[in-house]
């Protein structure tokens, strides 16, 4: 058979192409280079790092620490990539990073690169904050190790560490961090970063813990780094050319938003709403006869059920925050040191007490006799445990020492949220009760609703004044954390801030004023349905507003970190 010459050419070319494509996929380096590489034997690089690791283990009262020679750190960042490659980290996971300090003037201008990882603190905040005891400070080496399988992924250590060290992995549902290549040191090998520094700027040395504690008082750790007195970091930064007085982190004037933690936003707002509802309920039924006598039978269970439901919804939301919620029960382990443990336990008690309390309120429905004495005790217990849990919530954030989460500010915010959201629930219940009991709405409103509205107005306005006051820091000359927060609130997060105040104003000020208006309620001009819808709107808008506020609480919380290191 004769072939068309051009098609013969084409098929020859196709064959050639196939050969090339096939050849491209065959890996030949091993067979082509017959050189035999020793398959065993000790690490060949040991000769470069032998002097960079201690020859003996630390004595008691001593521990291993990183020592960084700042004069030798040229900012090449090989340490970061080596740590990543030799520890087999996830694609975006960095356990080491390099920051930058800039200062001086003209002739004496200084750019100082600062390599940094976990400081294996004497008093690690990650460890004390962990609710499940997933951190341990190795008794022999002092290395702060994270027990990956013990972790529930609550990320509280991320908030607690002033150096932004623990890294959360979404895919794994846990945090991980530098362990100073614990295994390598145990085998007489240097940590990856020590091995990889071309200039031998990083070494492992033995430090005396008490000396570090004493020295931490003098803040001699590193200029522009977080106060060492808090956790007593052990890394030693040494230099023969002292940094200029005006040295600032290279990113000093940039502001970075922090994680918004949506599940926590919902958890905090809903649980505080619940606590608020229980509190208001206690007050209303204790002091107002209308509630005690006429509404008790009809809407009280509804009121209580709503309060309870919100609480459980909030606690449920918190599970979405956890990387591994199936192990959440471990959280009682850290009770001794961790405010997060305490918060979780306190909410457990609150859940139990309030459930019991609410159940009791339903007894009459099942033909059981209402038990006033127990009601009172359980009601008080529910409210008290709710307040305790709320206090623990406050402390969870206060204990991170973030300057924007100071006790006064945080406790005021959380408590006011309780009231701001608890009051409209009571108002709604009042209206519902009036309707169910066939009472004239305007008389109920005149007797009780107006009071609730007034209190709501005051509380709502107070909360917004508190939040607006944070923006006053914009005028500050210094770039304090508070000013950074204000810059975020007014800048990058500006739209959210605006929405927050819109919802807060309409729900907490404008609508209550409408309900309070002369000639509206009192003269009975408002249609009952209008009043009901307005009240519902107040509740919804305020809830949305508080959710916004709480998002901003997190997203503009301005975390501490090592100077000039990009935030994780």
């Amino acid at each position, binding site marked *: 058979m004769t072939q068309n010459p051009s098609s013969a050419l*084409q098929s020859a*070319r*196709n064959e050639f*192409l196939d050969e090339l*494509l096939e050849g*491209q*996929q*065959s*890996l*030949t*380096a*091993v067979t*082509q*280079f*017959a*050189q035999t*590489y020793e*398959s*065993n*034997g000790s*690490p*060949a*690089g040991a000769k*470069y790092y032998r002097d960079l690791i201690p020859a003996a283990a630390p004595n008691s009262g001593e521990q291993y620490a990183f020592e960084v020679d700042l*004069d030798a750190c*040229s*900012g*090449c*960042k*090989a340490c*970061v990539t*080596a740590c*990543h*490659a*030799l*520890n*087999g980290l996830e694609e975006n996971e*960095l356990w080491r*990073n*390099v920051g930058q300090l*800039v200062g001086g*003037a*003209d*002739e004496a*201008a200084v750019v100082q690169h600062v390599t940094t990882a976990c400081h294996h603190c004497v008093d690690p905040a990650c460890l004390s904050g962990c609710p499940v005891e997933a951190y341990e400070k190795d008794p022999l080496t002092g290395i702060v190790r994270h*027990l*990956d399988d*013990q*972790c529930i992924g609550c990320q509280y250590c991320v908030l607690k560490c002033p150096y932004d060290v623990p890294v959360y992995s979404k895919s794994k549902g*846990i945090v*991980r961090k530098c362990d100073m290549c614990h*295994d*390598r040191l145990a085998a007489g090998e240097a940590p990856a970063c020590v*091995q*990889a*520094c*071309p200039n031998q700027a990083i070494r492992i040395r033995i430090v005396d813990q008490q000396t570090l504690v004493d020295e931490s008082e003098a803040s001699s750790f590193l200029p522009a780094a977080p106060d060492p007195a808090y956790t007593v970091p052990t890394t030693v930064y040494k230099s023969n050319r002292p940094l200029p007085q005006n040295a600032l982190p290279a*990113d*000093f004037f940039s502001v970075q938003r922090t994680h918004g933690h949506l599940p926590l936003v919902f958890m905090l707002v809903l649980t505080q709403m619940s606590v608020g509802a229980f509190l208001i309920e206690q007050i209303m039924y204790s002091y107002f006869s209308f509630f005690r006598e006429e509404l008790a039978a009809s809407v009280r269970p509804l009121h209580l059920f709503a309060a309870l439901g919100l609480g459980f919804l909030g606690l449920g939301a918190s599970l979405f925050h956890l990387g591994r919620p199936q*192990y959440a029960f471990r959280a009682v382990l850290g009770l001794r040191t961790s405010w997060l443990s305490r918060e979780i336990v306190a909410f457990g008690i609150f859940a139990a007490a309030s459930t019991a309390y609410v159940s009791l309120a339903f007894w009459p429905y099942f033909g059981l006799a209402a038990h006033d004495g127990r009601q009172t005790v359980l009601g008080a217990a529910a409210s008290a445990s709710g307040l305790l849990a709320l206090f623990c919530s406050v402390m969870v954030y206060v204990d991170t020492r973030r300057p924007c989460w100071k006790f006064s500010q945080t406790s005021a915010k959380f408590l006011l949220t309780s009231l701001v959201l608890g009051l409209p629930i009571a108002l709604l219940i009042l209206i519902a009760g009036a309707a169910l009991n066939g009472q004239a709405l305007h008389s109920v409103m005149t007797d009780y609703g107006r009071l609730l509205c007034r209190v709501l107005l005051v509380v709502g306005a107070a909360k917004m004044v508190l939040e607006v006051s944070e923006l006053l820091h914009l005028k500050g000359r210094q770039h304090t954390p508070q000013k950074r927060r204000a810059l975020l609130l007014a800048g990058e997060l500006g739209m959210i801030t605006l929405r927050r105040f819109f919802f807060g104003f309409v729900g907490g000020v404008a609508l209550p004023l409408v309900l309070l208006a002369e000639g509206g309620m009192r003269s009975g001009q408002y249609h009952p349905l209008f009043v009901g819808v307005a009240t519902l709107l107040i509740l919804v808008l305020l809830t949305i507003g508080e959710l916004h506020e709480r998002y901003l609480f997190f997203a503009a919380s301005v975390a501490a970190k090592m100077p000039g290191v990009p935030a994780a």
Partner: protein
Amino acid sequence: MSTNMQQQADAVRQAAAKLWRSENGPLTHDLVQQPGKFGLGRLPAGKTPNATTQMVCGFCATGCSLNIHLRDGQAINLTPTVDYPVNSGMACPKGWESLSVLKSSGRGTTPLLRNGRGKLAPVSWPEAMAAFRDRLQETQARHGVESVAFLSTGQMPTEEMAFLGALAKFGMGMVHGDGNTRQCMASAVVAYKQAFGFDAPPYTYQDFEQSDVIVLIGSNLCIAHPIMWQRVLKNPHRPEIIVVDPRKTETAMAATEHLALRPKSDLALLYGLAHILIAEDWLDRKYIAAHTSGFDDFCAHVAEFTPQRVAEASGISAAQLHRIANIIHAGKRVSFWWTMGVNQSYEGVRTAQAIINLALMTGNIGRAGAGANSITGQCNAMGSRLFSNTTNLLGGRDFESAQDRGQVADILGIDAACIPDRPSWSYNEILEGILRDKIKGLWVVCTNTAHSWINQNTCRDILDRLDFLVVQDMYSNTETAQLADLYLPAAGWGEKDGTFINSERRVGVIKKVVRAPGQALADFSIFRLIAEYWGCGRMFADWTDPEAVFHKLKELSRGRPCDISGIADYQMLDQRGGIQWPYPEEGGADNDKNHTHRRLFEDGKFYHADGRARFIFETPRAMPEPPNKRYPYLLLTGRGAAAQWHTQTRTACSAVLRELAPQQAYVEIHPQDARREGLRPNQEAIVESQRGRIRAKVFVTPTVQEGQVFIPMHFEQTNQLTHAHFDPHSKQPSYKDCAVRVRRAESWDDV
């Protein structure tokens, strides 16, 4: 209770305890290490290799060796090679991340052809090859064979460069082709050629460790060449480190003397130093007499560069100049090093030669710890300089010499008439050729012109005028590939074999340890395919694989200064830890004894016919676009972070490298200037030149001088500002001097 029940109870208790506390499980195992064997130390259990192999890094010209961890022949990780004469167990972040940049959604997996709707659409290789042939041959038929040109690179193995150069010029009839090495090395090449008689950087990295005075001019070694800086820090002689740079760079900060001169006053400053050395008679007169020519004329030339005059021009005081001259005089082993601060200048050649002159007049050349040493940029710029067949005929020969053409024709077994009798246009001349309708088809291989070329807006406009633009690259998402009419997907470093030549003339191998994505092919294979389709397949019938071409290169180098005929094969390069040229076959025993570190000119013999080095000089010129009333600041460009490489085509593909580099373009400005312009740190600013307008974050720092601003070159927008002017001898673009203004960005700014 039976034991069985007891056991069950224990098991339940244990399980319960584990639920409560779990210190050992899959998450813990994820990070567990095992001895890596192969001399590697401990490695993550999931990443222990069953073989290793070494190859040279594919980023910069330092030429570090990377030890590739293989599992079943496939690369899974790497560490720097411990016993390699270049990097002794260290690498910079780019080297560490070499493998991860290969995995990227930006990789080309199939040829792409611009279709009727103007979109790049996937086509088969045969379709792509037919389009390549038909469109380019049509262009040549209509506008002449010279109307198609190529742009090559310093990033491919030498064998591929030689193939490209030979295929384009001998097989396809092209006359004009140049490489991106024009942007980094051309000035050094011309400086060496004119001064030494051949393009021959004379040093070995050991010189960093042996000097007692190290002079770095226009070089931020810490950031641009971290592993060379390692060698400086290993120097046991407590060397004086003199850094000449307008900016207070990391390197300047580590120096013992920093000369923060005015930009582009370097030539005057170097002549000023020569003036003092002559005036004080701090010369090696014996060396000058025996091995150089033109010194007297040079003396006359520098006579007018008095310290006072130079101080005025450079801003460096006469006293400091004198002190530096004295340090050079007092040094026993003085080495001079330069990089882009010198090369990327409109008078880069003469500046480099002014450095060479200092070395010659003080006898600091051909000795340990001495030399006038140009540090190269790209991993294979040195290979390109010898074998890219662009400016020079293969092997550093001359296209205009019939004898040279005859030699090449004989060695390659081709007709000498196929070889053009004149050198190529340079990069800028090719682009100008497009403007003048002389060039209608362009084949861009392994470089990113639309990002890196000076005065970018004009450059892109020029590329748009082509009838047919072919881009052959690993990545289909480069700025240039986006402009292409035809895109050819290439395999990259790690996916193919070949050799690189590093900055100290060391030839090293690269190997195929990763499978290329999709239908990507090694550039070498693409050239074979093109030869076949073009109809010149027979000319390249024995160019079957890179090593076969390597043997041709050996023959092409035989008897020339860059003689590598003594290198048996890739295997020998692999076993020796690279071999520096020259390595002639005839050298025999001497080769073996000295193979690890060798420097040139130890015998004082240079490559000019008379064996003497030349003093070459010229009167400095003012920069063409100094700061002025409308554009009051001088824009400097350069390297940003060690984690960034050139146009970031590759480095942006690594999550780690992205983390380690600034995400956004920024402009460094002095605090006084920032105050004057009302700029606050971290604010958005608009930087404008006559040619373009870009947005950048303000970084206030005293490391730049007043009246100057600095923007790293890695950001795409930077070259919108730069002013296209060139060294007249080397045609290298002068990237580091143009006038700009800076102001706060307003919300209505549209950039």
